């Protein structure tokens, strides 16, 4: 059983109209592994994650979770698969009609039918893990700063103790110290609870820290895949340019001068 990857993508393609975003993505993630996807803005990293969790439908290709091809599951039967997932959205996507604690407890109450009081306790514990106090739980999401919203989103993603978590830019918009707290939190999720994690980040420090493996998305394909240690000695000019954050190199940004 251990050879079945937790997540397996084969030749996944996705276009929006004439715009080809994913052009044959292949990726295997083992159980308990933490994989980081890096890549330029607008290359389709978020689209890739959304295709896996079924918010977007891939045009073609195979997406397997625990060996089961999820692209073949009818929409009304996805529930069993969705239960395995936790997701931090890039924009937070907090429910602004609910107080913060109910956001975090939402999955517990909906999925696991936990009582409100019990779920609230768990929510406040989870909020503490991301450095937010219990009184923040009573506020509404619109009363929080951007970085606090991000942390609430993170708490919501991990509160239900899912098997697989997707983090879309978990440390963007956080100060360096809080970013490192979040890095440690993600590491502890993966190492202690055996959660499988797929993260997106632009922050190379964070990528090296949380990623067992790092992979780079460029022009619809994953063009490099290796451990955090190999990043500096890859010899891949695209990766080198990205890691060094240089405007000079094979990757041309679509800007006019």
């Amino acid at each position, binding site marked *: 059983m251990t050879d079945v990857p937790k997540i397996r993508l084969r030749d996944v393609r996705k276009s929006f109209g004439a715009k080809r975003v994913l052009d044959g993505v292949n990726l295997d993630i083992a159980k308990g592994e933490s994989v980081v996807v890096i890549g330029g803005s607008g290359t389709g990293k978020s689209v890739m994650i959304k295709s896996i969790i079924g918010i977007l439908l891939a045009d073609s290709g195979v997406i397997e979770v625990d060996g089961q091809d999820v692209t073949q599951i009818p929409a009304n039967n996805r529930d069993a698969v969705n239960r395995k997932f936790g997701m931090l959205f890039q924009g937070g996507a907090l429910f602004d009609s609910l107080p913060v604690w109910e956001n975090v407890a939402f999955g517990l109450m909906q999925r696991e039918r936990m009582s409100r009081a019990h779920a609230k306790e768990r929510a406040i514990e989870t909020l503490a893990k991301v450095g937010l106090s219990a009184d923040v739980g009573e506020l509404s999401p619109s009363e929080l700063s951007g970085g606090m919203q991000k942390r609430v989103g993170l708490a919501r993603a991990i509160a*239900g103790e899912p098997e697989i978590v997707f983090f879309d830019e978990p440390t963007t918009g956080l100060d360096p110290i809080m970013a490192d707290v979040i890095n440690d939190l993600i590491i502890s999720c993966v190492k202690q609870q055996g959660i499988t994690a797929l993260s997106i980040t632009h922050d190379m420090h964070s990528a090296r820290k949380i990623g067992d493996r790092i992979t780079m998305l460029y022009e619809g394909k994953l063009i490099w895949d290796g451990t955090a240690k190999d990043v500096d000695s890859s010899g891949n000019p695209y990766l080198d340019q990205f890691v060094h954050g240089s405007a000079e190199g094979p990757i041309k940004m679509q800007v006019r001068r």
Partner: protein
Amino acid sequence: MNFLALIGSVVLAFLGHLGRLTIFTATALSHCVRPPIYPRLIGRQMIDIGYYSLPVVGLTAIFSGMVLALQSYTGFARFAAGSETAVANVVIISLTRELGPVLAGLMVAGRIGASMAAEIGTMRVTEQLDALTTLSTNPFKYLVVPRLIAGFLMLPVLVLVADIIGVFGGFIVSVYKLGFNPAAYITNSYDMLKALDVISGLVKAGVFGFLIALMGCYAGYYSKGGAQGVGAATTNAVVSSSILILTFNYIITELFFGT
């Protein structure tokens, strides 16, 4: 563009919308009868639609009743001496059958339909609907069904209140401005009223409430493209539910009273 091609593309777009709306309605209805049901959310919507619309609907009703009494008196006084009976009759029948449901429907469409479209539309463009799905919660069950049920149940209540307030408005004008006998006015109103008048009005109200919630949710659910898209969805919800209200008003009247 070629003129015929233009017509064709408009027709195709319309049919596309119609098909999508039909599927949306069928999906929503099928979720109405399958658990889980969220009583808490239904309750909140009922308060939002019923209680908070009371001032708007009440004001609309009282002034409509008043103006109705005034105008019909002007009309009847030209012809007959028995205008007292006629005014009371006209006020109560037109209110219960037509003006109560239609005016309340249109006011609630502006208030509730718009806010539903804006709320669900904002949730769509900020990915909150996607977040719901990943948290194993069906947006139809969680958002659409409570609104449909609450709309369907609360509009008749609002219309009943509007009927009473409207008749009261007519009463005030008739008694204090036109100098009618209060007791006779009430008897005249009551004698003429048939159960069917009120029932047809309440049936209309239920249908209108359902339509308002349906169009609000539909427009919000399929909105896209940020604040501008949400704005367009809000307009669409109000315009389409108003048109549907007037259309269904005719159809239901035809079913009840057409010969």
